């Protein structure tokens, strides 16, 4: 009978487990590549669903919930997981069976979540992982004893070798509909009385099932501060909980400590009958780990290793990614040229080649960097190194409100802020993650290089500052003025990023308390398959979510720089009379204090989409050919020669060039980044704020540079 219903509706199974318990590996093994990634509505929590065939012939929908330490909502991840499991999230059907993944090598803490899951009374099966690493330490784990103690089926699995998967699915299938027996742990009498009262209130007011109401009552008693309580609960319940806490406090009882201690006491009982370790257990699990940690977390060698690892990551996204990026760009260009040949000339052709393909090109060009960064992030997370790196870097980063894990996103933002911002998901602390996202685009990304190169090449004299003589009459230049200028731009971005992070930490986000608490998981061999799956997922999400916005903005920008069409004018003057050209003239009063004229205004507006477009736009305004190398040289000559007819002075001076570079260091001239920030913060609020603050910063920075330079007589 059960199988009949399975065939028609499919069994929904929720995978729940602690972080690092092997949940993702099991999910991948059970579903293969039949996975779908999305978001829960209204939040940035990822929703992963996969399909698996049940041994009974039915279909199962596997819901991979985010890794959790407990069902108490501390983070959006935990809140969503809790609401899904309790069946209170609108639009999400309650799963029929919980598949709880328990890491045998970390049994005590893993069973904490298990004890909370058992409270819900939902049908449940435990998948016991990492049994081999317990046995490697000569420990013995008795799965049958665990099954008896906990009261739900326990199956041992080795996901990497696909062992035990069929038995696991069979157990899950037959668990459907089997409510879990009474809970094994007991509360102290005082807390039990208050819990019962609260449970009855929640049950009545919120019309909930008794077991769900019990879980809610416990959470209400444990959590202080009303805002942290689940928002869907009736207000009366929160007030009652507050009163109950006060009554307990008078008796000297701390409900949170009491409830948690009761659970761990039950866990200790369970573990005693299940886990048998040799005498020297105390240090056992840490023997190998400890030896590695002694180097990896060493106050000196740890940092040396860290910088080597970071150098590889940075090098790969900065240099190695260049080749595939160029191939992609050439591919799109070739396609555009091909279209130009076969399509009749006209607006439609221009729209497709310049607008659509321009947008597609500027989107997919980021793919190699995203793929590479996520490959490394996945590897670093899975090996257990990421947590160690965060441990080493936390002191430095926490001073400005960042997290040890903010380092990699910020570093990769030197190549491109997009993968950097996408990588902030590994930061557990909400506040640190938001600050990292907000300041990451201040790091000088590779798209700024063309602007720097053009400006420095044209206006910064190639003076040597430091050189060593080499045998044979040559000299090796160690420092030159162009090089120092370039370095100064990178430095300015870094200083701005840390300064702004500190500012937001102290003002805007002051109310959010920071948390660090981070598990240092045992070192493990990473799975290339998992890394590959994560790479593809990230890339696909980027294309789907950011790509659409980027495409739309590209088309709009193309239209603005093309219309109104003045076919009566020579090609070089057309952009001047387009909407962008008109806007360039219009904003001249606003940007002249920075030393810019309307032509630079056109450059800034058309490079709103992507910074490197500035160079192409200037090329169009100054009417130099498209050809790469000679084009730049011609442009440099034209820029140098340009004289303002009103004043008779040069439009570009070294000071204007520096002011323009400062503007590009600080301004958010990248819609792809904005689109990604929108996705990662789930709304337009933060990208709008980010665009605003960076614009103000850029304007102010350029203003100070230009005006101070003029006062000093450099202009």
């Amino acid at each position, binding site marked *: 009978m059960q199988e009949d219903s399975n065939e028609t509706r499919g069994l929904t199974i929720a995978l729940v487990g602690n972080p690092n318990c092997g949940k993702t590996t099991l999910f991948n093994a059970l579903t293969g590549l039949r996975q779908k990634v999305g978001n829960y509505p209204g939040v940035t929590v990822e929703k992963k669903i996969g399909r698996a065939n049940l041994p009974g012939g039915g279909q199962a929908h596997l819901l991979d919930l985010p890794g959790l330490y407990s069902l108490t909502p*501390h983070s959006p991840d935990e809140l969503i997981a809790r609401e899904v499991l309790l069946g209170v999230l609108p639009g999400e059907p309650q799963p029929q069976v919980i598949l709880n993944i328990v890491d045998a090598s970390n049994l*005590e803490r893993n069973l904490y979540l298990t004890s909370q899951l058992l409270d819900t009374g939902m049908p449940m099966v435990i998948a016991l992982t990492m049994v081999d690493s317990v046995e490697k330490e000569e420990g013995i784990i008795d799965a049958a004893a665990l099954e008896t103690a906990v009261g739900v089926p326990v199956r041992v699995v080795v996901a990497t070798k696909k062992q035990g998967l069929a038995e696991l699915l069979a157990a899950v299938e037959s668990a459907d509909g089997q409510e879990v027996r009474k809970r094994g742990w007991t509360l102290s009498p005082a807390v039990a009385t208050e819990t019962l009262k609260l449970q009855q209130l929640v049950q009545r007011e919120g019309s909930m099932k008794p077991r769900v109401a019990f879980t809610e009552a416990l959470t209400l008693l444990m959590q202080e501060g009303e805002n942290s309580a689940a928002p869907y609960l009736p207000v009366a319940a929160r007030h009652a909980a507050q009163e109950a806490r006060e009554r307990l406090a008078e008796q000297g009882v701390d409900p949170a400590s009491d409830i948690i201690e009761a659970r761990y006491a039950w866990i200790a009982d369970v573990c005693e009958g299940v886990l048998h370790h040799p005498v020297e257990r105390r240090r056992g699990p840490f023997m190998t780990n400890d030896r590695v940690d002694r180097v990896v977390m060493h106050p000196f060698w740890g940092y040396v290793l860290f910088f080597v690892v970071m150098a590889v990551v940075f090098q790969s996204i900065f240099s190695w990614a260049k080749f595939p990026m160029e191939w992609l760009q050439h591919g799109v260009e070739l396609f555009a040229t091909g279209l130009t040949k076969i399509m009749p000339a006209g607006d439609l052709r221009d729209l497709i080649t310049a607008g659509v393909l321009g947008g597609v090109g500027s989107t997919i060009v980021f793919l190699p960097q995203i793929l590479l960064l996520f490959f490394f992030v996945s590897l670093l997370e899975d090996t257990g190194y990421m947590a160690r790196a965060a441990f080493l870097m936390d002191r430095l980063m926490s001073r400005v409100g960042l997290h040890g894990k903010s380092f990699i996103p910020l570093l990769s933002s030197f190549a491109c802020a997009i993968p950097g911002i996408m990588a902030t998901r590994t930061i557990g602390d909400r506040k640190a993650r938001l600050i990292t996202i907000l300041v990451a685009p201040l790091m000088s990304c590779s798209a700024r290089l063309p602007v720097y190169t053009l400006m420095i090449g044209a206006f910064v004299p190639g003076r040597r500052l430091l050189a060593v003589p080499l045998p044979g009459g040559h000299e090796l230049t160690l420092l030159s003025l162009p090089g120092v200028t370039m370095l100064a731009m990178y430095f300015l971005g870094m200083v701005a990023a840390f300064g702004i992070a500190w500012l937001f930490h102290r003002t805007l986000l002051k109310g959010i308390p920071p948390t660090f608490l981070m598990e240092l998981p045992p070192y493990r061999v990473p799975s290339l398959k998992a890394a590959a799956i994560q790479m593809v997922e990230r890339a696909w999400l980027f294309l789907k979510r950011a790509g659409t916005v980027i495409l739309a903005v590209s088309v709009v920008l193309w239209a603005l720089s093309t219309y109104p069409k003045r076919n009566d004018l020579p090609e070089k003057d057309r952009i001047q009379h387009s909407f962008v050209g008109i806007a360039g003239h219009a904003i001249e009063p606003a940007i002249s204090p920075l030393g810019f004229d309307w032509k630079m205004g056109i450059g800034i507006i058309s490079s709103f989409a992507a910074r490197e477009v500035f160079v192409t736009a200037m090329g169009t305004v100054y009417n130099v050919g498209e050809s790469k190398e000679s084009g730049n040289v011609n442009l440099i000559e034209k820029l140098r020669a340009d004289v303002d007819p009103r004043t008779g002075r040069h439009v570009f001076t070294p000071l204007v060039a520096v002011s323009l570079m400062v503007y590009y260091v600080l301004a958010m001239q990248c819609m792809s980044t904005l689109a990604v920030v929108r996705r990662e913060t789930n709304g337009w609020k933060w990208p709008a704020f980010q665009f605003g603050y960076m614009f103000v910063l850029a304007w102010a920075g350029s203003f100070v540079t230009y005006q101070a330079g003029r006062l000093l007589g450099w202009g």
Partner: protein
Amino acid sequence: MAARGKRDQNLWRNIKQTYDIETAGSMSDRPSSPHGALRRKALSLADLKPGECGTILRLQGNFCGRLRLLEMGLTPGTHLRMIRVAAFGGPIDIEVRGYQLSLRRDEAAAVWLGDNE
């Protein structure tokens, strides 16, 4: 003080840590003892040196990370061991309930150690 040898300094530090000797500006947040200056001091997790062990007495205060610490298994009576401390006053690395946990020093300072008798 400046003339003291390194050995003496270490000795002095140990005495100060074992007994709560009130020196100006230090440990002012701890309750002062009614029995005079010399008293077995309530040690916090942040005071442990690498390799040292302790048992949790209680989690001090009402800070928001308290519940999370309890849930991660840092309940009263739990045995823990300091593994290492990060350079420049960074986070600490401890062993608790058979796993390795890292926390910032200000978080660790709220974990009081001692025997609950």
